[in-house]
Structure formats: structure tokens, C-alpha cells
């Protein structure tokens, strides 16, 4: 809702790149650099954002990739409550496009997008999507999840919903229109954050360390009855 309102209110005067994040400083959503959003933001490769037009800020695949949402597939899955209603929601959001067989991108609805990419859609379309959010009878946590998995589509599709529908019916993957947006974690760190490892296994060792740090943080928080990390390794760099 806040994202769409920002796009609607600032449609004409958007900066070259807009970054959309949650309001909290630390979260498991920002699991790249010690759960710390500012540390992540300082490292975003803005040249890549300009080049790609849309970049998911998260590299980790869980949850969200490689094949996450199968619209309409039952039975109800509490881990992805949006899945079972996704087909209907999609039809309301993108009336002219066929429902994709699967939608995937790293979770959590945090991304960078260029003004040019945003403006591939008309302001009226963002208003239309926001009206859907306001009017749907879905619970907020479910409608929010629907939006989480359509941003890559909304920003990536070509301008005309009709063109999109035709291309999708022909099975043409138009990156720019792919409902699946799952860059390998290693490529994401390299191209998205300029952390490129050259030796085989070096990245896996690093990411295992990141994951272990995240586990330790959860254990420490649990022991200390805290919700904030006791300290952040990257906060001063």
C-alpha cells in the first residue's frame, strides 16, 4: 500500500532509482550483511539497478525460489496462504494476462527499481492495483503476499497488458515479463553487491558463515529475550 502510494504520488518526479524496504532496521529479510538494512543499502550496485531496471534486494532463495507459487494449487498451505487464491487475485490485477503456472522471486518485497521501469506502467495502473488492495476482501497479510510475488511482473512486463498477454500465450519469456526471477545467490552477491568470489567453494564457505551467523543471532536473541541483534558485524563498514 505504501509502495503504491509512493509511486502514485511521485510518478512524475521519481528519482532515477527508488528503493523499497520495510521500516525496520534489522530483519531476517535483510540476511545479506548481518540482518542490517543500512549495511545492505550501502552496498547495492546502483549501476546494475540502472542496467536491469528492477532488482530484488534479497539474494537468498528461501523462501520464494525456485518454484514458489503455483496459483490455485491446493490444499491450503499455511506457509504460503496466498497460493490457493492467487489465480483469482491475478485475474483481478492483470485482467488481460494469463495466470502464470508458477511465480517465484526471493521473498520479502524489498527491491530497487528505476523511474524508467516504473513508468513502463501508467500511473492509472498503480492506482488500479492500490484500489484492488483497498477493496479486496482478502486479509492484509494475504493480499500483501500477492503483491510480493507480482512486483517483478508488474515492473518487468512490457507496457501494454495486451502485448504481455499475447507474448505469454506464446510462451515467450520476456525477462522483462517473466514471473520467475531467481538469480543464483552467488550471482546476486556478485552483480548486486560487488562481492565476487573466484575460487570454487569460496562463496559456499562464505554463505555458510552468513547462515551460521544468522542462526547464532537467533539463539542469542532467544537467550537474551531480545528482538534486535546484540551487535552488527557490518554496521561500521
Amino acid at each position, binding site marked *: 500500500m505504501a509502495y503504491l502510494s509512493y509511486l502514485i504520488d511521485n510518478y512524475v518526479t521519481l528519482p532515477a532509482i527508488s528503493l523499497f524496504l520495510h521500516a525496520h532496521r534489522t530483519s531476517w529479510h535483510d540476511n545479506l550483511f*548481518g540482518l542490517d538494512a543500512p549495511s545492505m543499502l550501502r552496498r547495492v550496485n546502483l549501476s546494475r539497478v540502472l542496467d536491469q531496471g528492477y532488482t530484488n534486494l534479497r539474494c537468498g532463495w528461501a523462501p520464494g525460489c525456485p518454484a514458489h507459487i503455483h496459483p490455485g494449487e491446493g490444499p491450503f498451505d499455511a506457509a504460503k496462504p496466498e497460493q490457493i487464491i492467487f489465480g483469482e487475485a491475478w485475474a483481478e490485477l492483470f485482467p488481460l494476462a494469463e495466470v502464470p503456472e508458477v511465480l517465484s522471486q526471493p521473498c520479502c518485497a524489498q527491491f530497487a527499481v528505476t523511474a524508467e521501469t516504473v513508468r513502463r506502467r501508467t500511473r492509472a495502473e498503480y492506482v488500479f492495483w492500490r484500489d484492488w488492495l483497498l477493496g479486496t476482501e482478502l486479509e492484509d497479510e494475504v493480499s500483501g503476499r500477492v503483491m510480493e510475488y507480482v512486483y517483478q511482473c508488474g515492473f518487468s512486463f512490457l507496457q501494454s497488458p495486451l502485448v504481455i498477454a499475447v507474448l505469454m500465450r506464446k510462451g515467450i519469456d520476456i525477462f522483462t515479463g517473466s514471473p520467475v526471477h531467481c538469480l543464483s545467490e552467488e550471482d546476486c552477491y*556478485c552483480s548486486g553487491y*560487488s*562481492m*565476487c*568470489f*573466484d575460487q570454487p567453494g569460496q562463496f559456499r564457505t*562464505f554463505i555458510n*558463515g*552468513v547462515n*551460521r*551467523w544468522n542462526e*547464532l*543471532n537467533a*539463539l*542469542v536473541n532467544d*537467550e*537474551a529475550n*531480545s528482538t534486535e541483534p*546484540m*551487535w*552488527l*558485524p*557490518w554496521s561500521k*563498514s
Partner: protein
Amino acid sequence: MVALVEKLEASSPPSNLKQSDEPLWGEASPDLVRLVELSREMRTLGVWLVEQEEYVKNKPWQP
């Protein structure tokens, strides 16, 4: 809590306790001891992670 954990982390560990640190650890509960151990591991690993980033970013081939 954070200050106490940091103080304990900076002292000698229970497994190799110096006499001067005994009062500090004397009343530490098992839960606190575990918290300090976890925090110490977390800090050590955090330093290593930051070093890894510096290492890859300072390589000449870095794009």
C-alpha cells in the same frame, strides 16, 4: 544485559578462568554462560565475514 555480556566476553572464559575474573563469573547463571559463549562465537564469525568481504573486494580482478 549487553554491557554485562560484553564484559564477560572480554574476560577469561570459565574453562580457563583467571583468578582476577572469578568475581565476575561467580554469579553467572548457566543461561548467561551460554549466552556469552554464543555471543563470542557470533562476534568471531562476524569479524571473519567482514574480512571475507574486504578480501574479495580488494582483489585486482574484481569487476
